[in-house]
């Protein structure tokens, strides 16, 4: 059965994301919130995350580019990013943010810059992975199947 194969692929891919730490249990929670009354919840929230994160990352780049880095602002941005990423379960992004915040406290610009790089990298990885996942989901939906619910 085509649909079952697609579902299997989806499950395996999602499992790999979890295994590799890209996603954590919070993402599963989001999936659970998706139902007939709210069919695109996950996509909406994740898109919001992408928007937000991109803005935040740009702000961060700009803030760290300054001569006098306003660490308070940087910290608050990172705090925001951490909050967003933990809300959707982007675990690695969140972890990178946590590390980032520590360096902010230390007010270590170089470390912050490298953290920012790290965060950006994690973010783009997470983004592409999530986009792949959504593509697989869409395939299943068009074939008439249902999305398997993952539980950790």
């Amino acid at each position, binding site marked *: 059965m085509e649909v079952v194969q697609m*579902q299997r692929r989806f499950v395996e891919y999602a499992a790999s994301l979890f295994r590799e730490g890209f996603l954590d249990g919070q993402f599963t929670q989001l999936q659970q919130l998706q139902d007939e009354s709210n069919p695109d919840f996950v996509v909406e929230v994740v898109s919001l995350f992408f928007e937000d994160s991109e803005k935040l990352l740009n702000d961060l780049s700009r803030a760290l580019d300054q001569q006098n880095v306003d660490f308070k602002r940087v910290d608050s941005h990172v705090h925001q990013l951490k909050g967003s990423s933990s809300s959707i379960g982007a675990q690695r992004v969140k972890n990178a943010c946590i590390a980032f915040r520590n360096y902010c406290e230390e007010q270590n610009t170089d470390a912050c810059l490298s953290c920012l790089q790290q965060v950006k990298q994690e973010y783009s990885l997470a983004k592409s992975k999530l986009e792949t996942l959504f593509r697989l989901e869409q395939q299943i939906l068009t074939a008439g199947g*249902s999305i398997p619910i993952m*539980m950790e």
Partner: protein
Amino acid sequence: MMESCDCIDPPWPGDELLMKYQYISDFFIALAYFSIPLELIYFVKKSAVFPYRWVLVQFGAFIVLCGATHLINLWTFGMHSRNVEVVMTTAKVLTAVVSCVTALMLVHIIPDLLSVKTRELFLKNKAAELDREMGLIRTQEETGRHVRMLTHEIRSTLDRHTILKTTLIELGRTLSLEECALWMPTRTGLELQLSYTLRQQNPVGFTIPIQHPVINQVFSSNRAVKISPNCPVARLRPLAGKYMPGEVVAVRVPLLHLSNFQINDWPELSTKRYALMVLMLPSDSARQWHVHELELVEVVADQVAVALSHAAILEESMRARDLLMEQNVALDLARREAETAVRARNDFLAVMNHEMRTPMHAIIALSSLLQETELTPEQRLMVEAILKSSSLLATLINDVLDLSRLEDGSLQLENGTFNLHALFREVLYLIKPIASVKKLFVSSSLAPDLPEFAVGDEKRLMQIMLNVVGNAVKFSNEGNISIFAFIAKSESLRDSRAPDFFPVHSDNHFYLRVQVKDSGAGIDPQDISKLFTKFAQCQSLAARNSGGSGLGLAICKRFVNLMGGHIWIESEGLGKGSTAVFIVKLGIPEYSNESKLPFFPKVSANHCQTNFPGLKVLVMDDNGVSRSVTKGLLVHLGCDVTTVSSADDCLRVVSQEHNVVFLDVCMPGVDGYEVAIRIHEKFTTCRQGPLLVALMGNTDRVTKENYLRVGINGVVLKPVSVDKMRCVLSEVLEHRFLFETC
């Protein structure tokens, strides 16, 4: 002058005597002639049927005239006048005319009269013939009457002996026979044995071989055959010297069996078994066998055959009935014994059930309590071992009891309507802890057309699912476990692995097919058949370490079969994972307006209110993403959610209507405490204000007292799951109080 005229010569004297005689004769002639017509008229008048009346008139006239002539002749003997002559002539002329006419008429009439006579003769012959025929008919009717009477006598009984005896007696009586005998074929079929005779009471068992030309002749025809009295079948009585033995007739009597009667064609008399009936007329009677008597004998022989076969059938059926009755009695006894045994066993089980479980529970409970106390590490290990063993034992006892009830069919499914989707969720919920410990991912996928509610035994279905999924978890050390559930269509129901599974579709049932795939140890194809047998375990090392009594799958199989389904496991080999598949038949519930089924699932694990319809909630969070997530969570639980992104908005928007307010207290630049205080200031008494719940990340430290001080009713650590939110809401609503620590 007396001259003689040329009339008559004077008579000579010798002629006087002659003349006298002529005179007298004429007179008498005339008399006769006159009387004849009178007689004729008289008799014709008497008879009504004479057709030729006017012929008689003619005849009469002719005779009268003849008579008149002769009468007138009387006057011509003497001298007579001319007038007399004239009258005489006239009379003669008339006579001549009439007689000629009459003569001519007679030519026509006499043949007719003659033919009358012939017809009369013909009619007489016919009458004689009819008489004869009447005689024949009467005889036939008599014969028929006799046959009917005989048949009646014969068929009025179903007893073979009576039938035959009656036949002989009645035949003897009807036909006045001297002797009548019946020869029956013996069991071997090679001889005829004298079975019944009329006169002799108890015939000695003469037997004669069946292969005899006369006998063959009789058997080959269905007519009564005259045979010689010297034939061995006819030599029944000692010949009495010089007397002439009466004629003997023999006829065959077919002995029909039930198998001779085909449905469509009447029994061909291809049956080989005949009996021989021999009838002897009385000796010295010179009586002969008449055709109608032979016919009677043939008819009787047929009737006897039928009557005998009826009697035989009746005997068989009586015998069969007696046999059945005996068997029934025996079966009844056996059934009662079996019932007694089952009842005794059930009583034993019930008692043992209770007796065994009570101490078991005591052990488990006390061991658990012991675990809670202060123990040295060795002691703890020991107590854990005790707990583990006793849990195992308890499971084993339950399984054995269940299985024995399943085996003898005394287990009945408790069908009811339940939420199918909720069942799967609960299974996942229950398996989550174990799976997460082993770092396994469990996913479930329910087909969109799977009905939400179904009719079936929820508890047992849960048991099956838990067993199957539990096995998948047990035998996997890594990877993921996926559960697929969908409605099985007929093609997929007929599986080569289940050759004797014939699903029957009906309108208010559907077949649920569940597949649980794991990426675990896999199963050797040889062992697959043993999986469902009781107490059998695979010999692989992995299995041996996992414990379990080996009954789980056997019980599952019984339950699945009870539910009209089938269960099997596929595996490509060791190390390649396995897939357990089962199909069960569930009913589709009928909905009526009154019996609205509860639409929230039963979550027995926590005492949480499951949905909060219409609960008005305000969420304050500056992070857009986490705000949407929280909102999504609350909407999922049925709440009416408003979101604000700043403290000012929050204070502006919050109102009496809001039941709960979620505050994100780690918003930079905002003191969560302050917001709480200011919200409370808005409402005169805390009771009327909304409940406040603080959302915070797990890196912040918090103290209970601080929150109580500012009137916050609960604290929740982010990230929040659906269940956690649910519990939070219900605890806060119920107790107005919730604190969650890390």
